């Protein structure tokens, strides 16, 4: 699974920065019939968690109504240098992680 995250590499202390995360995932709703007429089983990401130096700053519960390859963007305050880490979990034991470094001056 490919994930693309965008965190500014450098920021001033107290600055509000935008964080973006995009992940490759089919987000199969569980309501669609497949080619043979039977329902394709649900396969979605249900949770996205984002931590900043271990502390949770953002959590999102995803539903079947969210399109494939979910893109999420939000803002946070740059408080200290460190790691911003993303973890996606979902159906069929889906788990993906990605992290980026931010330097706060």
């Amino acid at each position, binding site marked *: 699974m*490919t994930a*693309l995250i*965008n965190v500014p590499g450098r920021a001033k202390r107290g600055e509000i920065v935008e964080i973006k995360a*995009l992940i490759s995932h089919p*987000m199969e709703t569980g309501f669609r019939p497949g080619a043979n007429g039977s329902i394709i089983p649900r396969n979605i990401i249900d949770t996205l968690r984002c931590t900043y130096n271990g502390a949770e700053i953002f959590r999102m519960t995803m539903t079947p109504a969210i399109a494939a*390859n979910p*893109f999420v963007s939000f803002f946070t305050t740059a408080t200290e240098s460190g790691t911003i880490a993303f973890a996606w979990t979902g159906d069929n034991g889906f788990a993906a992680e990605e992290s980026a470094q931010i330097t706060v001056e």
Partner: protein
Amino acid sequence: MIPALLGLLLLALPAQAQTRQSGYADMGPELRAMQDDDAANPAMLWVREGELLWRMPEGATGKSCADCHGDIKTMAGVAARYPAFSAALNRPVTLAQRINLSRRENQQAAELAPESRELLALTAAIARPSRGQAIAPPDDARLRPFRAAGAALFTQRQGQLNLSCANCHEDNAGRKLAGVTVPQAHPTAYPLYRLEWQSVGSLQRRLRNCLIGTRAEPYAYDAPEYVALELFLMQRAAGMKVETPGVRP
């Protein structure tokens, strides 16, 4: 009264009077921003995957694309000139077909299925360095009959609705079809991410869409008709900028 008259005049103007523009210009600001921002453009997921595949050894020779071609950035300009003539096959090939040719000949690997995720990813990754370059179809005499065949197909009525490509994309480009602006059909951004598909797709998939829309029988993937149409459309879009990987609604 005068604005109404002006409106009527505008409707009566033939589409040829318009300047050429990419489907990008027909989109709203949100979708344009999505295409322009690599962190938000979902097609970049395919590009990243393609860049990994580029460096992955494949086939009996155990060589990766990078072993012969070097960095993928050296592919800049390639997408701007394809389809090109393949002397080995004695016919024009699209960029995706060229990738499969190289897999077969140079890597001795199995060909990737048309429209498969891997092939779309590799095509998008190879086309990405050409972004911003002007489309420059080769002036190769061997391509001319195929391009002419594409031009003939473009104006040939077909399907139950008895429409040709030109009926919509030349005669009525810029007007509305079911609330959507009919684009001028310049293939500047393929392979591209279409929100309707929730995936990246090739120009052939898009052409297939149009054929189904006119209730014509779509050609099989990689049919010579698609290659001929792509040759003609790229010539028609010559000089416009490559936008790969694009985003369309």
